[in-house]
């Protein structure tokens, strides 16, 4: 599977990274280099093999369904690039 310029454009869009037109071709080359190297995994027989989760068998811990945190609005907003009246300010999203 090799990627072309259009695939890079599509993937960059999915990743929400603006990639200038002139970078698409070189990036396709770089990604193909990495992907070609990754292709070796097709040699491995994985029939009937479960995907890896953890080396130490454990069950996911459960906890009481109660609120344990909150009322920290100012802390949540403390690092916002833009906030107003206790809200995040974002670019206009509704026309």
């Amino acid at each position: 599977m090799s990627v072309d310029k259009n695939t890079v454009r599509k993937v960059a869009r999915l990743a929400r990274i603006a990639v200038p037109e002139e970078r698409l071709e070189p990036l396709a080359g770089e990604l193909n280099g990495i992907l070609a190297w990754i292709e070796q995994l097709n040699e491995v027989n994985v029939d009937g093999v479960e995907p890896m989760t953890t080396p130490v068998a454990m069950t996911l811990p459960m906890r009481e369904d109660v609120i344990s945190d909150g009322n920290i609005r100012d802390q949540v907003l403390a690092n916002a690039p833009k906030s107003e009246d206790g809200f995040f300010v974002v670019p206009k999203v509704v026309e």
Partner: protein
Amino acid sequence: MTDLTRLTLSDAVDGLKAKTFSSQEITQAFLTQIDTSNETLNAYVVVTADKAMKMAKASDAKLAKGQGGKLEGAPLGIKDLFCTKGVRTTACSNILGEFTPTYESTVTQNLWDQGSVMLGKLNMDEFAMGSDNGTSRFGPPTNPWRRKNSNVKLTSGGSSGGSATAVAADLCLAATASDTGGSIRQPAAFTGIVGIKPTYGRASRYGMVAFASSLDQAGPLAKTVKDAALMLEVMCSGDKRDSTSLHLPVPEWTKSVGKSIKGMKIGVPKEYRADGMPEEIEKLWQQGIAWLKAAGAEIIDVSLPHTRYALPAYYIVAPAEASSNLARYDGIRYGARQNGDGSLTSTYETTRAKGFGAEVQRRLLIGTYVLSAGYYDAYYLRAQKVRTRILQDFEEAFKQCDALLTPATPSAAFGYGEKGDDPVAMYLNDIFTVTANLAGLPAIAMPAGLDAQGLPLGLQVIGKALDEESCFRVAAAIEDAASFKARPEKWW
């Protein structure tokens, strides 16, 4: 008075308890060193001098009353990956801007609870993605080691390059680090110090900036095996805020250091004899085997047939998880926002294009591609199954032996730019370390000798899951036999 900055962590803790010197004295000694060295070495990206002196003063008050924790008064450096309340934390990425956490990571909280003093935040590859610390927004740190008769600046490895430089150059007693594919062990090997990645789940990931969640583990970089054991004892804990953390008692690993290895069975995996491996690495490995034999261990040849698939599997799993984890950096809730053409999508795309460096963008694109519609099974799922195969290899080998001995890196420290522009050539640095991340196993790197150019080389011990004890025991035996006393000649 002796130079306090050259003490080991264990000796410093003893000296503080015995009141041979105060925490304020040793903290000031480190701050002075940092002041004169950091411009050249670039290990620290934030120095918290006032906070350090305040913490030291509080420690001295406790020590005066004969109180205090396991690390009371000991000055440490913290990798910029760990969130520290009120102290800028950016994982050395532009996208985090001036992000200043309002909370503390569990690992650092554990260290403060035991009395350690924070000197500052340490340089690293952007989001821990790199093997030479060349992707940091603050520029790379410099390895205090140089080749004989050369002044070429060498990397101290990555991603925990700042931590390694700081420990090797006596800019802290020990440092926190993190390891996703070798980011603790490769820098340890490049700078002649000790670093351990514990079993996955031993240390909480809460408050640690995420890279690849199924691989990331915190661990220490320190001057000796005993220091690393002491640090790890304090850093590890079960944590209800990290659902993958293990709720198990943390053993007293310092007690394993110095225990005889007589009768232990040490496996030597033939697949680690990489093509084109430098003769010096092979020689060092044979030397390590001879030392362990002399100490009474039995050497057993083992096979880990899927070793060659570890790195390709890693370069699917890590970028895939990173692309998901780093989706949070949208310029809305924190970090540096770039407005683009004013629309929301353009704000996201411009923020991320300007905020992430080239290597991070490359990995996010790979990760997004392998997770995109139609490719999940072919890439991510297959890679996770290959991981199971790699773990099975280890489990099979551990039926015959207690721990494995391998080289830590395929070469000594290299110069910036010497690897060229090929990303895959840089990725190969992790060839000996990455298997332990994929299988979730504990692994320690310790110095074992110098190469012909006078640079340190390291060996690695990989243990069974939860058996850090064997790692420490074997590492201490090698440390003892190697009697590695070399230090970088001070030029900075």
